[in-house]
């Protein structure tokens, strides 16, 4: 239909009728998507909650029964679970720090007006975002291999020989953090760069007139202006890192031993390798609770400060 903007007045009764219709049309537009989310997301989660209160062992179904909160109790006294929780928290903090330090430095360098070629670097940085973590993980496993990896060859040709990134606990930990940061640092860098481009220029000009050093300008003017974006990005990257699975699975398989075993990996092993579904679902619910508390706290902090 053809529409033109005019100032023609409408009868009050007609407006009332239309308003009444709109009361329902909001639900009409919302319903299909909400239905999909409820059926596909909420129902499985509730089902998972129900399973977590049972012993559900697909490989040994004889003793399956309702056990109440026993699975949760067992998880909290399970050394492997607690160790994985600690590993996940350490890896998450380490990778978020690396991503932000590296990403912020890259964004600062890109933000300089006296350098050309921003677009080329930005194009390079967008590529890791487009590649599957699986391929990234396996590729780095080859490149870091102690016998024939190109990175190790590089170390050797520099005269450094005692490097075995994936075979030693510390090496495996650093590899997981490094490769995961390789995957996500470009995202943080591009994001912060885009945010820097959107900043109001006048405080920076005033600082230049006052003779502020570049370091002062960044610390005293730019960082406070970017605070809200930092909080949002930290939340996003923390939630994403906390669920890390693929890089761990293909790079170290949680090893050596269980040194780099993250919670997602442990839940996956329990659920889809040992088929002890009660244990897997209760562990995953503890993950959900931890993340919800973290997100709620961060959102609260954000609301207070903005």
């Amino acid at each position, binding site marked *: 239909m053809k529409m033109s903007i005019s100032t023609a007045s409408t009868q009050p009764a007609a407006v009332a009728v239309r308003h009444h219709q709109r009361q329902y049309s909001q639900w009409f537009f919302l319903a299909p998507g909400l239905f999909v989310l409820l059926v596909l997301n909420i129902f499985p989660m509730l089902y998972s909650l129900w*399973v977590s209160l049972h012993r559900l062992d697909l490989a040994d179904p004889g003793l399956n029964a309702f056990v109440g909160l026993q699975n949760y109790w067992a998880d909290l006294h399970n050394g492997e679970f607690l160790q994985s929780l600690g590993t996940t928290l350490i890896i998450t903090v380490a990778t978020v720090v690396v991503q932000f330090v590296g990403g912020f430095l890259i964004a600062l360098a890109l933000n300089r007006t006296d350098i050309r070629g921003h677009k*080329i670097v930005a194009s390079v940085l967008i590529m890791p975002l*487009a590649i*599957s973590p699986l391929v990234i993980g396996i590729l780095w496993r080859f490149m870091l291999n102690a016998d024939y990896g190109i990175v190790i060859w590089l170390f050797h040709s520099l005269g450094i020989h005692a490097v075995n990134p994936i075979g030693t606990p510390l090496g495996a930990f650093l590899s997981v953090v490094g490769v995961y940061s390789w995957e996500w640092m470009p995202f943080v860098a591009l994001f912060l760069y885009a945010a820097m481009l959107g900043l109001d220029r006048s405080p920076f000009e005033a600082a230049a007139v006052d003779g502020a050093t570049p370091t002062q300008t960044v610390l005293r003017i730019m960082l406070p202006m970017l605070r809200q974006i930092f909080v949002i990005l930290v939340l996003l990257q923390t939630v994403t890192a906390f669920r890390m699975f693929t890089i761990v699975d293909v790079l170290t398989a949680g090893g050596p031993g269980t040194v780099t075993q993250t919670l997602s990996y442990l839940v996956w092993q329990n659920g889809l390798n040992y088929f002890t579904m009660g244990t*897997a679902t209760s562990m995953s619910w503890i993950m959900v609770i931890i993340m919800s508390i973290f997100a709620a706290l961060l959102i609260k902090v954000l609301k207070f400060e903005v």
Partner: protein
Amino acid sequence: MISAMVYRRASQIVAVLFLVLVSIIFLFPIYWLVSSALKSTGRLWAIPPKLLPNLGLGHVWHIIAVNHLGVFFWHSLIESVASTIVVLVLATMMAYSLSRHRWKHRTGIANFILSLKIMPPIAVIIPLYLMFTTIGLYDTVPGMIIVYTLFNLPLATWLMLGFMRQIPMELDESARVEGASDWQVLRHIILPLIKASLVGIGAVCVMFAWNDYIFAVSLTNTHAVTLPVATEGFLGDYIYQWSSFYASGSLEIVPMVILALILQRYLIRGLSMGALNN
């Protein structure tokens, strides 16, 4: 004054060298993967490593044909594209309802949709595995389309909500005074204004689905296997098929890298909007 100029010059050089180093760090692994797909076995293991490939594209095509990688490519394509179309339709409708209607619970529902993003995939995979094996959706293409729809819908809705909130309400109000219905406002006023956002959000959704590993490895086995799972399959516990891995990995990443470069502008906007509007 001179020292200030020297300082500026020095920091400029440091910044350029830093960006060159950064570019090498992020570009080289991708080059190494694709060039290794074009190397003979002897060259793959040469020490010192050989940077340049020695085989043509025929080698890759041969590996793709021998391993029937086309089937997995097709699964990846149909699952990511079909789910993205469903997601875009549902997300646009939901965002329209949440941004163009002023009603009581809209903020609550919007926050609920966002909160779904916080759930770790593994938490929903275990119950989905149990449900899918029961109702016969395990290891099927429709099952995976459903999975990627549920995976992408919260983010897409949230992104779309951010874009729609930027459109002034006066536009629809004046159309409503003219007697336009909701569908007409959505089709003739909102949609033309969010075309670019649709492209960006669609690209993000296709990439997430195409690159997914955890859902695919958990919920497929034979008949709906995507490229990442097939790629992983070349590296068994005992047999490593290096050339096949490199070819399969390249087949997987090259379309997405090209897509990302073409849609670069939309993609950065889509990704940054998503986090900025909450």
